[in-house]
């Protein structure tokens, strides 16, 4: 899922300061699960924002709402009339949600209340780890289900590098060396010999380096006619 964390309150308050009617808009899917931008966090953020504005003598109202997914036109539409009443919407969705809103309803003013950090998963309460960069050409079959593009800080395809020590990355003791993990899993399955093959340079054109990507599935498109 998409992981995000709330921007500092000061930053959010500064973005909303010029406006009178403010909506803090939660998003109830990914960012709710990672406890950054769901209904509960939207309530909290709005409350903090009200206090902050009051202290700084900023007039106006701060209201709260939330949408199941800000990244789907249909779900935005359900709230559209209400959203149009606000001068500014502080979106607690990921960057995808913010952009879907402005793309779908260009008249809305939407600012991001979160910093979107990664695609990942929770390893324990309060800890989320990134494990996919969406490079568009998955290599997990070669690396025993551990992504070196994401989890090796140098995105090495022929690892581990000389900075790997005691299972940790040269970045520090709190970062696992992805290639040590790959090596160990290959060894456990008797496949370590596969590492002898030189993996060629990656074609990054399928990744973000090829520009923003559009995925088209002709087989599921609806022919809307002319």
């Amino acid at each position, binding site marked *: 899922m998409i992981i995000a964390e709330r921007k500092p309150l000061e930053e959010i308050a500064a973005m909303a300061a010029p406006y009178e009617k403010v909506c803090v808009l939660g998003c109830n899917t990914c960012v709710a699960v990672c406890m950054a931008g769901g209904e509960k966090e939207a309530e909290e953020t709005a409350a903090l924002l009200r206090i902050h504005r009051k202290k700084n003598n900023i007039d106006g109202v701060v209201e709260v709402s939330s949408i199941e997914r800000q990244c789907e036109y249909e779900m935005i539409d359900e709230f559209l009339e209400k959203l149009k009443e606000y001068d500014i919407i502080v979106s607690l969705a990921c960057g995808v949600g913010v952009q879907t809103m402005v793309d779908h309803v260009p008249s809305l003013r939407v600012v991001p209340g979160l910093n979107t950090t990664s695609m990942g998963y929770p390893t324990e309460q309060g800890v989320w780890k990134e494990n996919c960069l969406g490079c568009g050409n998955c290599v997990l079959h070669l690396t025993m289900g551990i992504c070196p593009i994401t989890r090796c800080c140098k995105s090495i395809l022929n690892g581990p590098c000389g900075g790997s020590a005691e299972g940790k990355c040269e970045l520090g003791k709190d970062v696992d060396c992805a290639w040590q993990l790959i090596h160990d899993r290959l060894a456990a399955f008797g496949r370590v010999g596969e590492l002898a093959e*030189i993996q060629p340079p990656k074609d990054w054109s399928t990744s973000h380096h090829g520009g923003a990507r559009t995925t088209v599935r002709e087989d599921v498109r609806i022919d809307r006619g002319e």
Partner: protein
Amino acid sequence: MIAGSKLERAINSGEFVVTGELGPPKGADIEEMKHHAEGMRNHVEAYNITDNQTAIVRTSSIACGKTLVDMDLEPIIQIVVRDRNRICIQSDVLGAHAMGIKNILCLAGDHQSFGNEPGSKGVYDIDSMQLIKGLKDMRDEKKFMGGDDVEGEFSCFLGAVENPFADPFEYRVDRLEKKIEAGASFIQTQCIFDLERFERWMELVRERGLHERCAILGGVTPMKSLGAARYMKNNVSGITIPDSLVDRLKGAEKKKEEGLKIAIETIERLKEIEGVAGVHIMAIAWEEVVPEIVERAGLYPRPKF
């Protein structure tokens, strides 16, 4: 002969080879580097020129390589994959070739977060293995990484690094073999302080005959002070220094002399290890001591190559 460099001739001669290392200036004054280069002129066959080592901005390794060529000295330019994509790297090595630079050492480079531009974007378009293979293919197959033909005669003597002290230990020899397969003709190792571990690694190297397929130059760094030793032990990625060595330095009255002695003893041990083709002396920030080390280790005068 592959590229006809002095380093290549030295390695092919079977003599015990000595290479040194120079760090380009962190600014516009190149005189100090030239002074250090001059100081080792008769003591090393070639000089590694580091490529923004520890991710700190310095004068370019290729430009400093050219400076050495102009002094009639032999550079080994380092190329790291951290700062340049495959377009830039291939372009730069052709430029280096045009300026008479014949030796290239391929490596990943320390992560950009260690340096003085920690907010920079790491490139890592290719990895060090792909770099070696890519440059070998430019030379031998006359093909760029993307498949286009390389015009003219491009040549380079290719080296790589290996760290016997990194983990997983059992994979380190596999990785050396992979680098040889990729195209490395010589290997410089990470600084050797843990000789026992290095000897175990060399045993595995010999078991597979890898020492006969490439020249292995053992990395040696003299410890200038207790602080320097502790700094390397705790802060430099990929370096292991046994506590016993730190204690020896700690107990010594003259730290510098003890640091030199340790380096010289290390070289003397390396000379005795079958399959070690030479030493690579990395005395960054203590370059002036290299001639003394070479002389006291019984490696002077250097043969003519």
